[in-house]
């Protein structure tokens, strides 16, 4: 068995989950950011994942079944910017409203737990692969 392939698939999963975690922490850290380089408040970001065939040779066996994950892009969610009345705020408009980021902390925390679990699942799969590879070496003993 070619053990490098399952290792490759597992690590692509781990990398994808870590990218998601990075974006979630960025969202959480910027929950009160009202000023960004492109202007306006911080907008919630989301990772888009896509799958890609892991076998690139012409072997054909399991070609469609084995897929690695990759980050297709990061999209900004522009909807749901909250306007909060706070005339003392330096970024308040002339009516006294401040545009706050569209981040729901509870949603982000829930998503963070989800990502954590998926990451753990990938790590377990990686460990299982390693275990199998080591077991294979027992044949010669």
């Amino acid at each position: 068995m070619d053990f490098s392939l399952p290792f490759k698939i597992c690590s692509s999963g781990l990398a994808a989950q870590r990218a998601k975690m990075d974006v979630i922490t960025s969202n959480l850290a910027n929950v009160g950011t009202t000023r960004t380089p492109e202007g306006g408040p911080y907008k919630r970001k989301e990772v888009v994942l896509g799958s890609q065939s892991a076998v690139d040779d012409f072997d054909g066996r399991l070609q469609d079944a084995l897929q690695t994950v990759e980050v297709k892009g990061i999209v900004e969610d522009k909807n749901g910017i909250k306007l909060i009345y706070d005339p003392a705020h330096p970024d308040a408009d002339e009516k006294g409203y401040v545009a706050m980021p569209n981040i729901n902390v509870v949603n982000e925390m829930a998503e963070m737990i989800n990502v954590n679990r998926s990451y753990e699942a990938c790590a377990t799969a990686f460990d299982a692969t390693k275990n199998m590879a080591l077991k294979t070496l027992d044949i010669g003993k």
Partner: protein
Amino acid sequence: MELFDRTINRLSLLADIRSQRHKVIVSNISNIDVAGYEAKELNFSKELGTALDKRVGLVKTDVRHLPAKTVNGDPDVVETGERVKIDKEMGNLAENQLMYNLSIELLARKFRTLTNVLKEAK
């Protein structure tokens, strides 16, 4: 007497199919968060049946015929049509890993038996 009997061949076939299934399960687990991904499954018993059945395969009646590996070249991977269920996949992963380890262990014992015989013959 054949030194490497049928059991060894069958055990290595079994380990091979288990490893194919492992790849499919790992792929499912990695793609769990991809929108629109459908869980895939390797039809284990059918794959094993195909591998064991010597009659499957094309007979070459002419030396100029090109080799054909199997009749159904596509491995029997079915799309279940539903999203990946993490508990099911982790269960499959653990079961498949244990069964793989079992085939390898049996294979190793088989070889150890042969080694013992060879040692005693000295």
